[in-house]
Every structure is written in C-alpha cells, then in structure tokens.
C-alpha cells in the first residue's frame, strides 16, 4: 500500500507542468522564501509540490501571561525583542540582520534598539562566529545569525575548536557561554543542495556546545530564550519551512522552556516515535495513521535539545513500548538517530520487541528536484511502523 503511494507521488512530480497536486500547503516553501509581494506568482500557476506535513499547533499556553498570534519567525523576533529590552549587553549581528534578515526574524529591532546593538556584518561566517566568541567572552550577550545552516561550515572551526573548548582549555577562567548562534535549518520545498541541509549531527560530536531545534513558535521562543540565558554556547536551528507555515498563540512576555528536556507530545503503549523540528509534525501524522489503520498506539517524543539530549525520557518510553522509531531529514549514516539508537540499545536491550528503526534522508547530497523522494515522509515512516509491529 505504501509502495503504491510512493509511486503515485512519483507521477505528479514527473508531469509537473501539466498542472497538478493541489494541497493547501502546496506553495509553502515558496511563500516562505518570498520576501516581497512584488514577486507573488499568478494564482493560476501550477503547484509543483505539496508540503510533506501538516503543522499541528500546540495548545495555547496559559502559564506565561497574555498571548498573541505569531508565526515562527515572529516568535523568534519576540524572543530577541525581550532579550534586547531586558539585557543591555545583548547584541545581534549577522548578514543583513539590520534590515530584518532574509527570513524577517529581526524586523524592526534595529529601529527599536539602535544600530549599535543590531547590525550587519560582512559575508564572513568564520568571522561572525569568532567575533561572537570574543564579544561573549568579554561579557556581552552575543546573538549571531548564520544566514542558512548550510553556510555554517566556514565557521565550523570557530564553533568546534574555539567556542566549544574555551571553558575547558582555560580551566574555567574564560568561556563564551553568552554566545548563541541562530540559523535557519532543514528542507524548505525547493532549497536544493545549499539551502536545505540539517547539520546538527556534525556539531553533536562536539562536547561543550548545546544544540536545539524547536518544532513551532511557542517552543521556539521559550527555547531560544533558554539558549540565550544558558551559560554555554548554543546553536539554535530554526526549521525554515515553519517560519510562516507554523502559527500559534505565543506569550508576549519572556519565558523559558528548559533545555535538555524532551517533551512527550502524545502518550502511547506500543511504539515510541522520536523526532525534532519539522519531522515532529510528520510523526504526528504517522501516529494518527498507525492508530487508525493498525490500531497501534504510538508515543510521540519531541527531542528538542540534540546535545546534551534527554536519554531518560526516551529510554523510559522505550521501556514501556518496546519499539523505537527515530526520524530526521539529515542522511541516515552518522545521523543523530544513530546515537539515540545505540544508547537505547544499551539501556533497553531486554525491553526491545523489534530492532530500532531509523527513517532518515538518503545518503546523498540534498537533491534539487528529487526532494519529495529524499525526505522521510509519513509513508516511509508508516512503512517502518508496520515492519516493527510485524517483526
């Protein structure tokens, strides 16, 4: 059944010009990348890809005061706004951030807080991060933006060798804990090789930094504020496909969602699903399908913090369910799912009813027109669920 579905998906992609696949969210990616109303396409234009997930908003949080409707980029702006207002040492910098950034996350902040606190840098990622480390070490709350996670590699050395090891190598005399690096992350519908990558696993190999990926606006604000407040350098990856697609009621005041704490979004008894970022929404649909079509009860966990990750919540769940499926967009080999799988295997070996499954991106570069095949969509995940149940 799933196989047929995949091939059905294949055909519209091939005949993409003859007008096709509807889907309300068909042009999500494009809308998201569009900054100008000038370039809105004609309404009659054919839609090439339907998005591979449906966003599920969180319930309205009541414990943090009044809320306002925000999408993910606005909730990031709101978190930055709170930080600049409350912390006079906070500065924000990156490529084009003074104008609001390519994804509009810093809109209006320069005008509100001044150009000495929100400013553009030249195009030099290594310099941006290095500069941030210095500023943080000297006592500023440094919030750096790398325009796309795909562009973070020139700064890899600064992050891995300088930021992550500063505290350790100085015997705790110096640190850059006040540094937070934000970066748009993950697939976007048509981002191709250099605008779609999910590099969290590269950094997960590096003790000394924290890595966080939110699933929606409410979580994004709380987690970003926690990263900024945290006394360790943090990398905050924002799922760019959700910037506009994800809309929730977000508290306007500052609040913190704890780091290194996974969240159980749905309790279940037969199978544990672990994901982060956009993939959480894919998994929600998988859980619903499993319940409806197979009568399988899934427990869904949003990992939220990739490093250091919440082993306890995950292992506790697997002890209960006996089955674990992990899914991420990055290629399967050496992806973070491998680490989770290995740990769970050690901790829960006697509880496992089926081998731990990973449904991830293929071991290829992120493909351009083949994106719908590459991403671990709900059908692939559902197939894995069936296999695990029938094991």
């Amino acid at each position: 059944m799933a196989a047929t579905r995949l091939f059905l998906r294949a055909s519209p992609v091939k005949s993409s010009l003859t007008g096709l696949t509807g889907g309300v969210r068909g042009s999500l990616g494009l809308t998201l990348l569009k900054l100008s109303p000038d370039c809105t396409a004609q309404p009659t234009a054919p839609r090439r890809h339907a998005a591979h997930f449906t966003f599920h908003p969180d319930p309205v949080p009541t414990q943090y005061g009044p809320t306002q409707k925000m999408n993910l980029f606005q909730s990031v702006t709101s978190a930055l706004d709170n930080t600049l207002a409350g912390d006079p040492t906070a500065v924000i910098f990156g490529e084009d951030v003074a104008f609001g950034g390519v994804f509009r996350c810093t809109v209006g902040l320069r005008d509100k807080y001044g150009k000495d606190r929100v400013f553009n840098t030249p195009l030099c990622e290594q310099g941006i991060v290095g500069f941030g480390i210095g500023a943080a070490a000297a006592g500023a709350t440094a919030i750096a933006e790398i325009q796309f996670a795909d562009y973070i590699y020139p700064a890899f050395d600064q992050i891995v060798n300088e930021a992550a090891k500063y505290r350790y190598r100085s015997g705790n005399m110096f640190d850059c804990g006040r540094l937070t690096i934000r970066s748009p992350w993950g697939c976007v519908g048509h981002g191709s090789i250099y605008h779609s990558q999910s590099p969290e696993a590269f950094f997960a190999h590096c003790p000394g930094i924290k890595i966080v990926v939110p699933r929606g606006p409410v979580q994004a604000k709380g987690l970003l504020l926690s990263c900024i407040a945290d006394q360790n350098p943090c990398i905050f990856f924002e799922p760019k496909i959700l910037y506009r697609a994800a809309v929730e009621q977000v508290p306007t005041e500052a609040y913190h969602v704890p780091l290194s704490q996974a969240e159980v979004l749905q309790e279940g008894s037969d199978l544990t699903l672990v994901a982060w970022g956009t993939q959480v929404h894919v998994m929600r649909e998988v859980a619903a399908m499993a319940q409806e079509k197979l009568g399988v009860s899934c427990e869904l966990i949003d990992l939220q913090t990739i490093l250091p990750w919440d082993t306890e919540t995950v292992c506790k769940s697997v002890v209960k369910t006996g089955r674990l499926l992990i899914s991420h967009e990055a290629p399967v080999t050496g992806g973070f799912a491998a680490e989770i799988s290995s740990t769970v295997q050690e901790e829960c070996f006697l509880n496992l009813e089926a081998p731990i499954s990973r449904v991830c991106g293929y071991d290829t570069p992120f493909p351009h027109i083949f994106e719908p095949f590459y991403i671990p969509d709900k059908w692939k995940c559902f197939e894995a669920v069936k296999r695990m149940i029938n094991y």
Partner: protein
Amino acid sequence: MQNMLTVVANTLKGGAKINGSRVVVSARSFADLTPQASFDIKRCDLHRLDEGPSVQTVLTREDGLRYYRTMQTVRRMELKADQLYKQKIIRGFCHLYDGQEACAVGIEAGINPTDHLITAYRVHGYTYTRGVSVKEILAELTGRKGGIAKGKGGSMHMYAKNFYGGNGIVGAQVPLGAGVALACQYQAKNEVCVTLYGDGAANQGQIFEAFNMAALWKLPCIFICENNKYGMGTSVERASASTDYYKRGDYIPGLRVDGMDVLSVREATRFAADYCRYGKGPILMELQTYRYHGHSMSDPGVSYRTRDEIQEVRGKSDPITMLKDRMISNNMASLEEIKDIDAEIRKEIEEAAQFATSDPEPPLEDLCNHIFFNDTPFEVRGTSPWVKLKSIS
C-alpha cells in the same frame, strides 16, 4: 552584381522571416558600413602597476556584433528565467545576471577558450559565454534531463569544459581558482585561470589565503572582483573597510575597470592575461558593474537602494545600449540589423524555454548517481525498502 550577391548572402545569413524590401535596405547600408573603428576607453585605476591597459582600442564590426548578440542573449535569457520563476516553473534559489553582461562577455573576449574560468553562484551568463546553449541553461533551471548538469544542479550549479562552475558558498571558489592556476603553471601550457568573486565575497577570509598562495608561487591567476555595489542587501560601504577592491590584494597588482563597458573589460582582461602569461604571477581586477535584479529571486532589490538609482544606471550606462549606440553612431551597424538580431534572439529564447518546459525530468535512478566514483554500482543507504537505489558514476 555585387549588391545582388550581398542581398542573397544576407538573406541566407539572416535565416529569419525578413521581408524583401527590408533586406534591400539593410544590404545597401551594409555596403557602406565601417568595418572597424577605434574607441577611447576609460583609463583604469592602477595599483602597483606602472602601466595599465591602453586607453584606445579597435573594435571590428564583426566583433562588435558578436558582443552585442551575446550580451543581448544573456539579457533575454535572464528575463525569461525571471518570468519562468514567477510562474513557479523554475524553483529553488536563482540569481540573475542582467546588468552585468559586459563583464562575462568582455572577459571571454579577452581570454582563449582553452583558458580556465571559475565563478560563484551568479552563473548563467558565464555558462553561456563558455559555450553552453540557452536551451541547456534554461533546462537546468527547470530541473530537466536536458539541462547542462542533467537537471540535478539547478541555478547555481552549471559547468562546461574549462569552466568550473557554479559554486554556491560565498567565496569558496576562490582558493579553487588558485588551485586551477597551479595546475596551469605545472602543465606549462601558458594557460591562465580567471577566478571571479563578488564584492560580498571579498570579505571572506579564504580569499586572502588564496591571494597569498597565488602570489607566493606566482600562479597565472586573474582574480576578478565583480563589484555590483551590493553584497546581498548590504552596500559595499557598509560591508568593507576599503572599497578599493583592486587594492585589496595588497602585494598583488590591481586594476579598477569600468565593468559596464565591454571594451574596457576586454582590454583589461587581455592586459591581465598577458601579465600572467609572462610569468609575473597573479593580478587582480575590480570590475565596477551593477545588477538590475535583486540578489536572488526572493529579494525585490529595492529595499536597500532606490528605484531611481536602478533607473539611472539603466539609462546612462547600460552595457548593451552603450555598445549599440557606439556601433550605430560610428556607422558600424544599422538599426535594422540590430533589430534582426534582436528578433533572432527572441526566437532562440522562446524555443529554449519551450524545450526547458517540455523536456522530461531526470529519472528517479539519477537521484543516487554520481555520489562517489565507483566501478560497480553500490547501494545507497537510507533509500526506502521498496525502491533500492544504486549509485553509478
């Protein structure tokens, strides 16, 4: 009789639907046209050079028409890409070259086809001047099988012989260019490598690493900074401590060239190529140019500069109009033949667009091909259990 032959020849050459009377008119004027003329060009600013390129150059009618045709083709191709993008037929990231045509065409006119060239992501113009057809470029943009990278790369990733692309990461291609120049030197074929980057990339650290190596080993590398005044949305003054990009190689001699004038670019490139071929080491050129479109398709291009500014450049220093006016005012070409060329280009672009929208997408197997070099196909991990994909290279 002579005139008759010209008429016949032109009808054959034109090929397009030209009505009889117009052919006669153009043929008559062809006979009176000046075959070549000498032009004054702007003097280049120099850095660590005693002498720069000549301030006068000779343009033949044939070359002039060729440059015109090439620039106009690039312009039309980019405008077509813009249109296809807005129709959502081209997806992904797309950076257009219109406004900067004189750079690509002037550089190509100043080097040999056997010389090497590498550039960043604003790549459509160079792909065309390096010999790829409009058809293959547009088909790559639409992700079709007939695209120059088999439809797998898209806008930023196009390659051809002696043309190393097509590189998406800002500044990352510059050390590669120095490496290509090292190979040129080692193979001793008297070839040079043209290494291009933008004013935004000029602030990346690896550029300076490449400068050092190139100068240290006297590599035949022409570093060219295409200064189009804005690195994405930030003007050069806001991003660079020194906007004298031609001086930023410090110990590497440099020239600042009018990048809107194809003849200036050609002369400067010839000068630079000669310099490299003499074994004097690398040289740096700054081409002052302008892009009409925004940085990419998601940038309307008017939030950080005024519409008036763009209009002024279009009106006063458009590279295509400038060349056309020069040729016409010196009686080197007639308005009619320019119009004919335009009509031919329009037809070529339409046909290419037709191809780019009707050619099939590459087959699914192609998703996994060309990851590694391998003699026997290997199975790619992670592909779904019901479609096992193998990689072949």
